[in-house]
């Protein structure tokens, strides 16, 4: 990883477009900055380009135009493996490896990074505690876990090598309402402690208001607005207003004001 320029954005999109090989455009002229330690939410419905934006950061996709910088360096010029290992990646279906135990899943990146076995064991122990899982669970396989447990393991795995950046693609989307609520609460507390730079994709305004320091609203491959949660509720933008209206009352109380 290159040195982080003081106070500069951690992730920076400049005129980024992405077009599928068949010519269908998914993203138009995106300009966006993610500041150190913030949780930037990409909010939008399916097809709005939010997942595409996320995958451009760790170069699962390569931009068709424009440039993306991570810690000041162009993603297209950096070593893609090093780039990816510098950011944790959590997706909705978690992507836990079904043939590995919880311990081996969490320890995967440290292991391929060549950490000694006892350091990995300590780290796994520490992470399980951090995400609120019993250490008994370490020898289980993903299919033996509940949805909430799997999601926690997914977060633990993303944090394993202590990357400064976390990319999360609807990580709590497939959970029941109660578990989701609990995990959002814990994520907020965790984020207060760890101060990672997080890019978080969701289609749920409530979740966006609750977890985000800023919300980037996307629609049909374009960035509509970037707003703080408070501003979002007051926004005159028709799309933002439509989101607020669709969600009903009581949104004001869920806003992330920096206290867990």
């Amino acid at each position, binding site marked *: 990883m290159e040195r982080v320029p003081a106070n500069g954005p951690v992730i920076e999109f400049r005129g980024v477009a992405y077009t599928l090989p068949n010519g269908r455009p998914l993203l138009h002229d995106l300009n966006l900055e993610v500041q150190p330690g913030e949780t930037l939410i990409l909010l939008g419905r399916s097809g709005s380009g939010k997942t595409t934006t996320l*995958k451009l950061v*760790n170069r*699962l996709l390569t931009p068709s135009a424009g440039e993306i910088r991570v810690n000041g360096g162009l993603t297209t010029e950096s070593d893609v*493996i*090093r*780039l*990816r*290992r510098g950011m944790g*990646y959590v*997706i909705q*279906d*978690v*992507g*836990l*490896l*079904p*043939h590995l135990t919880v311990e081996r899943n969490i320890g*995967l*990146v440290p292991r*391929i990074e060549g950490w000694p076995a006892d350091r990995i064991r300590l780290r796994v122990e520490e992470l399980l505690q951090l995400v609120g899982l019993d250490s008994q669970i370490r020898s289980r*396989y993903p*299919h033996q876990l509940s949805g909430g447990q799997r999601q926690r393991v997914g977060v633990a*795995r*993303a944090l394993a090598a202590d990357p400064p950046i976390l*990319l999360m693609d609807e990580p709590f989307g497939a959970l029941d309402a109660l578990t989701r609520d609990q995990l959002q609460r814990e994520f907020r507390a965790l984020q207060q402690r760890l101060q990672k730079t997080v890019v978080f994709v969701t289609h749920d305004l409530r979740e966006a208001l609750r977890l985000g320091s800023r919300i980037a609203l996307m629609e049909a491959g374009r960035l509509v607005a970037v707003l703080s949660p408070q501003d979002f509720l007051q926004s005159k933008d028709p799309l933002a207003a439509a989101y607020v209206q669709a969600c009903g009352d009581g949104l004001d109380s869920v806003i992330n004001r920096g206290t867990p």
Partner: protein
Amino acid sequence: MNVVHYFFQNHEEILELTLGHLWLVGISTLFAVLIGIPLGILSAHYPVWNKPVLGTANIIQTVPSLALFGFLLPVPWIGARADRLAILALTLYALLPIIRNTYTGIRGVDPFVVEAGRGMGLTDRQLLFQVELPLAVSVILSGVRVAVVVSIGLATIAAAIGAGGLGEFIFRGLAMVNNELILAGAIPAAILALSADFGLGWVERRLRPR
């Protein structure tokens, strides 16, 4: 009763030819695995290779076995010894199920799992050996199992070109119109095929990812 009597009288030769049979099948399966799995991986990762690779293996499969032995006879070095020839022919036949199942197994790995691994920063090599192959191993093994069972049957025909194996009894019995002789080859061959099927099936179930 005559068959049992014959088996007792000739148990040494039966054992010897059974071992010869196993050797032909074992070596050819080993070659087919070494060639077939990389070809299966290649066609799963690069779709351009899919049609030529599977197509060729399919065509080989359609050549009648006796004809294949005949075709290979004039090939230098290979044609010089019957066992080389038999091993080559058996290897060629075993390729199709192994390539096809490797292809199917790797294509069948959940794309989300592969993408998660890629997103975590696994190299292509690490993805292959730590994610794709372990998840495809039971499907690949079931291809190997089919290949072995088919080879055990086919290897009896290798005796026609003098490569030995249990086919010796069968061809000798056919020539002498002697049922005991035919059964002395057929019964051990059937037992071999059934036990290979059972044994490899057991390993396959053990390796199946949950």
